[in-house]
């Protein structure tokens, strides 16, 4: 069984319907919501603020701390155990590394910027949604950034290269299997700040996937810019 037609009827390069909003959490210094298909993501930014314990402080620049959390009821029926897990800590780390290249925290020595990423509903692509929402929230908080970070998962299902995989596509078990690559891309410069892969892929498919990701990132970046500007209309 090959995978010619996508489960939800999308074209291979088509993304799921997206929506975004900024300023969703009034208590936070910056916040954003990003929804792509059935994945919903909230990001809240607090800070720059004083960092404790003291040994974590960096006297040269502020540090970024990311917290990633899937809510217990967010998955596909199975309860996600609350609290930090090995998985969530790793994802928090890669999100932090994806965001750091654009952030300039040199004005805030010894301080910390906290980013909280919460997912009330998930259908694959959560780390990408997290990066998209967090980057909007950081801009909303008035922090210095080189540019916005956009993120999307691309990959190969069966024998076709597709963008923005759903959970069902990631779990495809037919001939060829499934490979997904979450990527974070700085849309202006084309720099890649996150590239992970789960599965196997050949050279040609990899090249087409990367092209696909760049195009998709441009779309997401346009949405991010539009959303941020709409907040002040």
């Amino acid at each position, binding site marked *: 069984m090959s995978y010619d037609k996508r489960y939800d009827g999308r074209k291979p390069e088509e993304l799921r319907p997206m929506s975004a909003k900024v300023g969703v959490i009034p208590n936070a*210094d*910056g916040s954003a919501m990003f929804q792509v298909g059935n994945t919903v993501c909230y990001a809240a930014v607090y*800070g*720059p*603020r*004083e960092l404790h314990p003291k040994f974590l402080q960096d*006297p040269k620049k502020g540090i970024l701390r990311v917290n990633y959390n899937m809510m217990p009821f967010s998955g596909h029926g199975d309860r996600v155990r609350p609290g930090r897990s090995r998985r969530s800590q790793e994802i928090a780390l890669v999100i932090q590394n994806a965001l750091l290249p*654009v952030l*300039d925290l040199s*004005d*805030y*020595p*010894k*301080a910390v910027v906290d980013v909280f990423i919460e997912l009330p509903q998930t259908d694959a692509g959560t780390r990408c949604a997290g990066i998209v929402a967090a980057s909007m929230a950081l*801009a*909303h*908080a*008035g*922090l*210095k*950034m*080189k*540019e*916005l970070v956009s993120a999307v998962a691309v990959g190969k299902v069966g024998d076709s290269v597709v963008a923005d995989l759903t959970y069902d596509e990631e779990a495809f078990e037919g001939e060829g299997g499934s490979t997904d690559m979450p990527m974070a891309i*700085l*849309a*202006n410069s084309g720099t890649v700040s996150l590239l992970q892969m789960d599965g196997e892929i050949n050279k040609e498919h990899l090249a087409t996937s990367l092209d696909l990701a760049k195009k998709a990132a441009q779309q997401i*970046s346009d949405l*991010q*810019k539009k959303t*941020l*500007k709409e907040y*002040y209309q």
Partner: protein
Amino acid sequence: MSEKLEIQNKEIVVPGQVLAEGMGYVPGKGTYRDDKAVVAELMGIVTVDGKVIKIIPLRGKYMPKVRDRVIGRVIDVLMSGWRLDINCPYDAVLSMKDGSSEFIRRGADLTQYYALGEYVFCQVSNVTSQNLTDVTMRGQGLRKLEGGRIIEVNAQKIPRIIGKEGSMVMLIKKETNCQIYVGQNGRIWISGEPEKENIAVAAIRYIEENAHRKGVTDSVKALMEKLQ
């Protein structure tokens, strides 16, 4: 060489947005140069002043600057001074020497002057590269704030709340008969009749929300007249 402005004056821009092409434009505050382009580094309102392009941020924490007048809360009493929370990522220190216009004897009980939790209107006297901040109480109009109420607003909107040469805050003072002290750090102290204080708070909140729009002075006037 081609030079082109990609935006209009007073437009809202987001990080990464190209503002102008060509070496003829100079990147100011909140922008950086990428190759030949001037690019936004902050979200805010862009201002083109001749060849200089800068961005006025719309949100963000207060950062202490020398000569700013701020409202601080006493959070600790030290050996020879007070530690103040000035609504920013770094605490400020008010030394005994700058604490009062009268002489404070060594070893005196410092809580007599400013106790924990009390608010003072003070002036930033020194900021180091590590953002260690000193404040002083020596100066005209600087004093302990007793009674009244304190509200916190977005620190980036303070210039708008003060208005041109203090016009906006003067307007609120006149309409409500309240005493108002505006700290650059986003804290505002209001003291007067309780009902009038409410009106002043509503007016300030309105300015904060609509600071990036035009004609705020007139609508604030109308709002306060309606509430009277």
